[in-house]
């Protein structure tokens, strides 16, 4: 499964998402629509860190990196490749 789909599955099942995972599109505004709140951010980070064995720096916790599935995938993708 791609990073994107793993993240999609996680957000759809663990965060405030009440529709099928397939409807969570790559550019869906997660912050604007309040799918991700302050607790959600912490859940996503711990998922990313344990699932992909990478570290998310405090400085990376900014809206640009979490505004959509595409943004989070880019953040994780950049770490996995390095």
């Amino acid at each position, binding site marked *: 499964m791609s990073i994107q789909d793993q993240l999609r599955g996680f957000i759809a099942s663990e965060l405030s998402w009440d529709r099928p995972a397939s409807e969570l599109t790559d550019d869906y505004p997660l912050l604007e629509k*309040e799918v991700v709140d302050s607790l959600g951010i912490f859940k996503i980070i711990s998922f990313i860190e344990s699932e992909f064995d990478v570290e998310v720096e405090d400085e990376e916790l900014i809206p640009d990196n979490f505004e959509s599935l595409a943004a989070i995938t880019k953040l994780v993708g950049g770490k996995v490749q390095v």
Partner: protein
Amino acid sequence: MSFVLHKLLEDSAATSSDRVAVVDGDRSLTYRQLNEQANRLAHLLIELGVERGDRVGLFLEKSLEAVVALYGALKAGAAYVSIDVHAPVSRASYIVANCGIGVVISSSALADTWKELAEGTETLRHVVVQEEADKLHPAPERLAIHFADELKDRSTLDPQVGVIELDLAYIIYTSGSTGAPKGVKLTHLNALTFVNWGVEEFAVAAADRLSSHAPFHFDLSIFDLYAAAKVGATVYLVPPKISIFPIQVVRFIEEHEITVWYSVPSILSMMVQRGKLSSASAPSLRVLLFAGEVFPTKYLRRLMELVPHPVYANLYGPTETNVCTFYRVSEPPPLEAGAIPIGKAIANVDTFVVTESGDRASPGEIGELFVRGSSVMRGYWGDPERTAARLIPDPFASEVVDPVYRTGDLVREDANGDYLFLGRRDNQIKSRGYRIELGEIETAIYQHPEVAECAVVAVPDDLVTNRLVAYLAVRGTVTDKDLVRFCKELIPPYMVPEAFHLLEGLPKTSTGKIDRQSLLAREKEGS
């Protein structure tokens, strides 16, 4: 001497007219501007028929407009009722109908929601939008919408409405165990008792820059707004969006050189973990106050180590009593220590502990905390029964009939005379500072036609105090997504359980009740 909240603003507008009162992003208002705008709004409200004692709804995101709106309502003699714009419309409609709101102050961005709101209630007649008129979709016929053009020519003079300190200033709706939220009625005196104490205790002065983090439908917002107004200081509204990212909150404090911060502990815990705090962080910070839930010792200790310079204080009090006790944390608590105390009563408030058998508890004995004094509410709106259950005659007074509030919180007085919070007598819990009745969530879930049995358990959590998990037995085929969607229609997002576990049947105790302890044990085992 100011006996009413809006007089604080009027006095500061007279003495510090050009000082900045409120900052919202790149917009701000001076005391003169804030007072004049609030006066215009108040004169409009009065013309619309708002009278002393009426309730005016605030249906607004946290903004300059919301601050103008609450002062406008107060100046018209009304009590303001701030309604959570993120809660389901059904809940907002309940509040409007419950306390008979005739006028709501809102924004055009929320037009779809307040139109829906108006359709669901009989009482609502007017919506005031402090913006230029735009193309709004047709509103229900009986609803009149008033825009900025109706405000601009109004008098900027302070309206003369004979409000006294015993009049209601605002109503805050909190979670109710029987499924409906309950409106806590608070007077000008109730708020000022706390505000006046806080200003003196923490030496708040004109040069201070206070953060306003809590939403206006949450009683933590009272201190920031009115303490600042009392001394002519500046309030910086914290944009809700930045609270999601700890590093941005730290930057916000640094950038605006915030001197007084007041919030729930969970946001501070997040800053400790992910906010890149150091001893050089937030040099301007002078006073750091927290309330609403227990601050986990390990995070508080770390925070005080990282940012040692401010005064730290734990404020305690249910919405019904404002803040009624406080504890100054003078040094980082030892890691092995339990939760820090909630301290001693604030000025002009009396507290005592009553044991199970109805006697006054001696120090060290566990009992329920009772609160007496001018910070205590005037009851629940339209609910004499529940008011009578919580606001009872002082059991130890002989001649003076004096209502005291039963908090439902179990406490014990320690050797220093400080109260320690031990837990609740009922099913009320805290999560991210929000007070939640598990019964209200269960009532919502039971409304789903397929649900046969249900119990919501609160799972203790370091970061947010409690996480909510629902266990259910259902009749047909219901998915957890269905249930999330269903709950979102009825209760605010922070009350929607994060997981729904479907079981064949719920475990029972020997007396046939749902066995919550075993569900909680199951949850702890699984995680």
